[in-house]
């Protein structure tokens, strides 16, 4: 294969329309007679609905109809795809009927001929609530005397799940020291800049329902919406137009999609709903939400013999698509990049009167990495070792791959020392350590944080996934030789329109401009799984690769026929099929394509046309890794943190486009910074989200963010032919503990060994009011 595009920093083909404001996000789509939907949502975290009065609203000008839960009885439950043993799955209606279980739960949908009138009408609806005590804190939810979120269950425990590997009890007996720490992974708001949105258009003649939705998973949504509405799946079409970020929050099937479809069918009009930011904070899934106790068994040389993690997962009031599955991912990655043969995790998932948690960038793995990377630092502190040395003692070495973890995974390939070495060199780690000592004497507090993470990507082999983990691609060589790719992944910023074109252009020896990548439309693209779990390039890209291989194979047959030789005498390179022993005798891909469609001179039994579809089923996950080093200084006077240096050396296997990889790392690190230092969904004791707008919930701004120094190593994955591992979540996963470790390290003179996120200035300031030791 030529390497003209692969590995190059190619500017994205998706950008010109986006920088000129000509891309179409859901809200930008105009349809004739389009009506607007606004919701009335619960103002209580837990309440019985005594009655709903919609009469005033219905009488307002422009209002077409007002829908309540009663009107929508026919719509099926909002789906949960997880099938954990013993899981309690509550009915999850699209509009609440008798009870509401979180602030923001939709109760009434108002349809009017304009957004303004729909909003007015929604304000005119009155709901008669009987407030009930709210279950807010997960520990309180798990307590025996708690109020029940769902009366039909005898408690708030949705499931209990354990993972055991090796002999943990023995490990703890053999340890020189057992280190314990409670760690909290606060709830986070994904806050994609484009809120969610849906347009539904039912065409009564064609009996076809089209949904435009800001989603990461158009095909899964189509299946689920068809089931919820009792429609034939082939009469439902889901289109994901430009999608303004997702980070997991759009990896879901919410009630609004099916409901808008239903409304459009009822009214025989197209209808649109665009989420407000307030709705996005209160009624779109949140991330993380774990409260856990970590214990590690350590030898005095820093070797970790075993780890235990006992955790309460705050699921929220209902189960969304993957809600219960997220904490199980934490379990899988709990041993990190280390040779820790004994592990045990016990999860108790509890219902609370809050919006559901689900996948948010990293989805369960940032928790794991944070736990193990914090634990490494705790071990270092305990024995007064350098945190880097503790890591070195425990890292899985290059010779051990594929490495079987105690959690049951097989790490595909790795060289964990390499990025560590590189990151230490770039950051001049020893210099910072010396600097730290000097500064402390002057009353200035510098800290260095390291994280040597490994993460699980390319989700994943289907048996390990709730709803299939393969991916599909159709590649068509059109009669004029232009290439069209239909991919089942659904990019929304990751740049696969470009990276897949790079793969195809090199494989087929054509210009990048000749390749068009289509995605996100179930009416155009064969079934696919979607974009999440850092899978798009590793799994979806491999599907493209597979489809092209099929085409080339077919092309060889035709080329041999046209050149009048046997198949074995033909070779393909740089867009040409030619004779091995006489390269002057050749036929271009373009001519071959035309010949395949005009079909006048085909070999016997040869199917006309030049297209192939390929469904790629990965045999394993992939495991990217890397080292992040962060240096901070904390100001004792204010508790504010200043990042002096940030170095990230990541290894995500073979790189298709370094521009895209760097972009993913930048964004991921900054989301990690948000969690580490700023963000938290704060609920009060009655379940109101206090940080329910950007004016109270701080996400990083340009000025909050350091300049990141990036570098990489490249260890190809043996799992797929291109060697790609994936990078979508690595930044978030690797960075969170590096940031926190740095601050905790800075606070060491104050006797601090752990601080829960977010490390907001006041928290730090309080810790620094003590005398130093």
């Amino acid at each position, binding site marked *: 294969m030529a390497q003209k595009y692969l590995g190059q920093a190619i500017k994205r083909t998706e950008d010109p329309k986006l920088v000129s404001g000509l891309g179409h996000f859901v809200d930008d789509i105009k349809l004739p007679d389009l009506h607007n939907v606004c919701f009335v949502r619960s103002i209580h975290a837990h309440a019985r609905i005594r009655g709903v009065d919609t009469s005033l609203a219905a009488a307002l000008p422009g209002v077409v109809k007002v829908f309540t839960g009663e009107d929508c009885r026919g719509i099926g439950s909002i789906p949960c795809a997880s099938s954990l043993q013993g899981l309690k799955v509550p009915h999850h209606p699209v509009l609440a009927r008798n009870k509401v279980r979180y602030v923001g739960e939709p109760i009434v949908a108002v349809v009017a001929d304009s957004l303004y009138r729909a909003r007015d009408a929604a304000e005119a609806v009155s709901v008669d609530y009987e407030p009930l005590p709210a279950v807010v804190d997960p520990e309180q939810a798990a307590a025996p005397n708690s109020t029940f979120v769902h009366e039909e269950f005898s408690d708030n425990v949705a499931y209990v799940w354990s993972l055991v590997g090796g002999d943990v009890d023995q490990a703890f007996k053999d340890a020189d020291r057992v280190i314990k720490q409670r760690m909290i992974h606060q709830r986070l708001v994904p806050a994609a800049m484009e809120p969610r949105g849906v347009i539904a258009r039912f065409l009564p003649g064609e009996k076809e329902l089209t949904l435009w939705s800001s989603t990461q998973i158009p095909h899964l949504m189509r299946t689920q919406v068809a089931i919820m509405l009792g429609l034939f799946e082939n009469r439902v079409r889901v289109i994901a137009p430009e999608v303004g970020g997702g980070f997991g929050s759009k990896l879901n099937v919410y009630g609004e999609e099916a409901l808008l479809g239903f409304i459009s069918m009822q009214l025989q009009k197209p209808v649109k709903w665009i989420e407000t930011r307030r709705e996005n904070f209160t009624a779109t899934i949140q991330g993380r939400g774990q409260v856990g106790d970590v214990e590690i068994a350590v030898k005095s040389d820093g070797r970790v013999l075993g780890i235990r993690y006992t955790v309460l997962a705050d699921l929220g009031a209902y189960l969304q698509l993957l809600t219960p599955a997220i904490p199980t991912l934490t379990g899988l990655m709990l041993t990190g990049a280390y040779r820790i043969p004994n592990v045990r995790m016990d999860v108790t998932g509890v219902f609370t009167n809050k919006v559901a948690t689900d996948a948010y960038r990293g989805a369960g793995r940032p928790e794991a990495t944070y736990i193990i990377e914090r634990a490494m630092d705790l071990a270092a502190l305990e024995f007064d070792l350098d945190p880097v040395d503790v890591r070195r003692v425990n890292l899985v070495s290059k010779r051990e791959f594929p490495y079987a973890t105690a959690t049951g995974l097989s790490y595909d390939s790795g060289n964990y020392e390499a990025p560590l070495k590189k990151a230490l060199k770039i950051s001049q780690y020893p210099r910072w350590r010396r600097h730290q000592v000097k500064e402390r004497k002057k009353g200035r507090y510098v800290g260095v944080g390291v994280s040597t993470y490994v993460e699980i990507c390319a989700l994943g082999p289907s048996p390990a996934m709730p709803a299939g983990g393969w991916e599909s691609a159709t590649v068509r060589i059109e009669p004029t030789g232009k290439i069209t790719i239909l991919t089942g992944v659904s990019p929304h910023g990751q740049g696969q329109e470009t990276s897949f074109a790079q793969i195809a252009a090199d494989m087929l020896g054509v210009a990048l401009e000749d390749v068009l990548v289509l995605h996100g439309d179930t009416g155009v693209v064969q079934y696919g799984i979607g974009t999440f779990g850092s899978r798009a390039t590793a799994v979806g890209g491999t599907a493209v690769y597979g489809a092209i291989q099929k085409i080339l194979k077919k092309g060889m047959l035709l080329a041999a026929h046209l050149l009048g030789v046997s198949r074995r005498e033909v070779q393909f390179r740089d867009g040409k099929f030619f004779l091995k022993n006489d390269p002057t005798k050749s036929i271009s891909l373009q001519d071959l394509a035309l010949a395949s469609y005009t079909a006048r001179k085909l070999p016997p039994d040869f199917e006309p046309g030049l297209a192939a579809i390929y469904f790629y089923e990965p045999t394993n996950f992939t495991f990217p890794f890397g080292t992040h080093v962060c240096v901070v200084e904390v100001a004792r006077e204010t508790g504010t943190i200043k990042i002096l240096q940030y170095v990230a050396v990541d290894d995500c296997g073979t790189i298709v486009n370094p521009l895209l990889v760097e972009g993913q790392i930048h964004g991921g690190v900054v989301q990690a910074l948000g969690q580490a230092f700023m963000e938290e969904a704060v609920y009060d004791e009655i379940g109101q989200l206090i940080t329910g707008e950007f004016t*109270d919930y701080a996400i990083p701004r340009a000025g909050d963010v350091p300049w990141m120094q990036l570098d990489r190593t490249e260890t190809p994955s043996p799992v797929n032919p291109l060697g790609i591992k994936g990078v979508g979540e690595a930044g978030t996963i690797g960075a969170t503990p590096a940031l926190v470790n740095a601050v905790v390290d800075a606070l060491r003179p104050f006797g601090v060994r752990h601080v829960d996120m977010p490390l*907001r200035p006041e928290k730090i300031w309080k810790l620094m009011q003590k005398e130093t030791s």
Partner: protein
Amino acid sequence: MIPEAFEYFAPSSIQEAISLARRYGGDAKFLSGGHSLLPMMKLRLAAPKYIIDLAGIGELTQISEEGDSLKIGALVTHKAIETSDEIQSRCRLLAEAAFEIGDPQVRSCGTIGGSVAHADPAADYPAALLALDAEVRIEGPSGGRSVRASDFFVDLFTTALQQGELLVAIHVPVLAHNVGTAYKKLRQQASGFALVSAAAVVAKDEGGKCTHIAVGISGVGPKAFRASKVEESLLGKTLTEKNITNASHHVTASVDVQNDIHASAEYRSAMADLFAKNAIWVAANRAE
């Protein structure tokens, strides 16, 4: 996202604006930059039936010198204050405070009159105007009056403005060249408003003794206030770092300090001390 419906008026003179306000009483609101009013209307926290847009009243947009003060029209934007040569050279403190407000887009729209009339306890101007001993010029149905900044800010979102009264201008003194000023702000991470801010105006004699000091504080209590204890203890003293530090304690002594998710009362108080100290220190160094 969508405000309630209202009727809209665009008067072209102060008199016209005042008479409209009188006609519609409590149901009417003046609109200046709209950057406090419209966000509240969009969230339906405010729903005036009548909006009186002041933008057409040209005389409210002027900055001019009147005697030994600068007259800043109510409609002068934060941006204009931040960049005006006149203000930068004669009342730098106000320009510095303006520069700390929100973000560039907000500063392009928001006005000093709107901000002062709105009296957000975490707004930037109030601290500066208190430290400057500014005067607020008001016109109303029964004529005009001037109110000192210290009498103007009454409570949380409450000012000396009576219903139907229009704030027309702010008068700030032209500061002598030897006076030093400084504005220091700790931002609430999410909103950018002041968690604490301190404005200091300081003059000293040749021996370095403090001959004048005024310190305004925002963000801490229900309204901006003067740190008078601090001022008293520094007046007449040499402005050494030690003296300033010693004086800048208990800035919030007699204040009902806010306590919310963004900062506890304890932290706010400590930051008030610190930022007051920093502002005074910088102002003292800038004073000649």
